[in-house]
């Protein structure tokens, strides 16, 4: 991290230029995206599981409520978040009073924002995988006497693996690129709350196009890698599973 310094000679060597770049936004973005993806991973799987077995009447309402953050403008999500976890909000004020720390304008504030924005992506992808899953596999497991835990972890999860992984990667990518809600609850504090997306905005505002381009490049590389991995997951999903032993005849 650290502020930008260094004399002119070093700046001309590309390697030195990279070293001198302030990498904090990348580190912070990865940290926020990693933690929020971990949260949405478990929450998404669990809640998708609950909704799949919910009665039909409740299902529709729950589905709408859980998908809402995906279609709302991120600034609206940010606004609601500020009103809840801000220093005067119902949750924020209680936490501030009881534990003495603020929930907004810190690096971890971004986790709240990105978790809410990315949750629907995870939830919907996992639910899609659950609905595509052949329920007769569960029935046959039950009639064979297998335990529910065995059926869930050893039959259902492995067969929904691709959907779950794709959801996780998408959620991670979205978390990495989240701007609207994040900027509202974290602001932009260099070296403390800056993320890649807020940094690009800030650099552009300052007219520092050269630095903005660098971060745009970093962002492109990450997004490209994510999309490639999603595509690879999808194609491996379509391919039938091959046996270890070759030469099977029917």
């Amino acid at each position, binding site marked *: 991290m650290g502020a930008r310094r260094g004399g002119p000679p070093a700046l001309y060597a590309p390697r030195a230029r990279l070293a001198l770049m302030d990498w904090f936004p990348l580190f912070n973005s990865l940290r926020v995206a990693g933690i929020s993806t971990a949260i949405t991973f478990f929450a998404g799987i669990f809640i998708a599981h609950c909704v799949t077995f919910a009665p039909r009447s409740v299902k529709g309402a729950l589905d709408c409520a859980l998908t809402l953050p995906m279609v709302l403008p991120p600034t609206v999500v940010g606004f609601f978040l500020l009103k809840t976890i801000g220093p005067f909000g119902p949750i924020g004020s209680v936490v501030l009073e009881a534990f003495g720390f603020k929930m907004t304008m810190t690096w971890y504030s971004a986790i709240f924002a990105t978790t809410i924005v990315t949750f629907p992506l995870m939830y919907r992808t996992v639910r899609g995988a659950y609905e595509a899953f052949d329920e007769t596999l569960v029935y046959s497991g039950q009639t064979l006497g297998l335990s529910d835990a065995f059926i869930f972890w050893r039959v259902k999860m492995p067969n929904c693996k691709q959907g779950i992984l794709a959801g996780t990667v998408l959620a991670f990518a979205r978390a990495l690129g989240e701007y609207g809600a994040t900027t509202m609850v974290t602001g932009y504090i260099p070296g403390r709350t800056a993320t890649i997306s807020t940094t690009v905005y800030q650099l552009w505002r300052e007219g520092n196009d050269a630095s903005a381009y660098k971060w745009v490049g970093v962002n492109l590389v990450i997004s490209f890698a994510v999309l490639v991995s999603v595509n690879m997951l999808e194609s491996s999903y379509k391919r*039938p599973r091959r046996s270890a032993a070759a030469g099977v005849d029917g």
Partner: protein
Amino acid sequence: MSLSVRIKKNFGTFSLDVNFDAPDGVTGLLGASGCGKSMTLKCVAGVVTPDEGRIVSDGRVLFDSAEGINLPPRRRRVGLLFQNYALFPNMTVERNVMSALSVRGGKNTRARFAELAEKFYIRGLENHYPANLSGGQQQRVALARIMASEPSVLMLDEPLSALDSYLRWQVEGELASTLEEFGGTTLYVSHNRDEVYRLCGGVCVMNRGRAEPLRAVSDLFESPNTLASSLLSGCKNYSRAERAGGSLVRAVDWNVELECGCEATDDLAYVGVRAHYISLADEDEEDAPNVFRCRVIRVIQDVFHTIVNVVPLGAPSDRGCSRIRVEMSRGESRGIGVGDVISVKVKPSDVMPLKK
């Protein structure tokens, strides 16, 4: 050893009301698609809960709505072979079978697996995934897995319908010996009368969620007594009917009076005649009973014989039930063309009076 099923379940547009006692051996549940056959099996297996009723297997109560008993599927010891076999796609053949063996526990699971692999001809396939197996192999693995769980009742849901027709015959043979060896109560669901005839001892015809009383297979095919069972037993010709005194019935859709071998009863609603029991009448038989003149509507060449569709002269319509299908050899059908009028006859013992 037997299985007694009395269940009711309402699905809104469709309701299931099934009553039967299946003895040891193979009992067929024969019915058209969507008549509730598979749902009945799911209720017995416990993956679907009926609204009310009682299911008893070998004296063990599996479900009783009055007493509040509803054993979970894993404690029912009911093996269910699904139409798509429901092998776990993420596991090899060996792990599929071992998963069921490990539930039973004991130290000899490896030996038991080897025994099952031998018996179901799956040796050499242990490390294959289900997607790489043929339909017949998948079925053998699924049966081995079910037998590994040592069920006391075996249920098969359309076990041959997912197979190509050339494989079906071979797999049916294997299945027949497996069922024979199992010996316990087996329910065999199918919409195919030939399979049921060959594999089952008793049969229960299901029609729109209702099960007709259990009867011997030969009995059903020789004298189906309801419209649904006659259709399922392969009868192609039927007409609405009313009594015309004594053993005489009037076939309304054909506008002919037919002599049937027995006294017609009050609940007579239809009359059926199998296509291959109708034959051409000779000229000197014109005035004999059960001989009537028809106009030929279509002549269809089938693989080994000829199908001639006719409509009796004087029939109220020339479509639907008024059409009669007559099957004859190539030689007999020579010279018969569309528009011709021919005389056909049916023996009184081949006329089947049917209830609704």
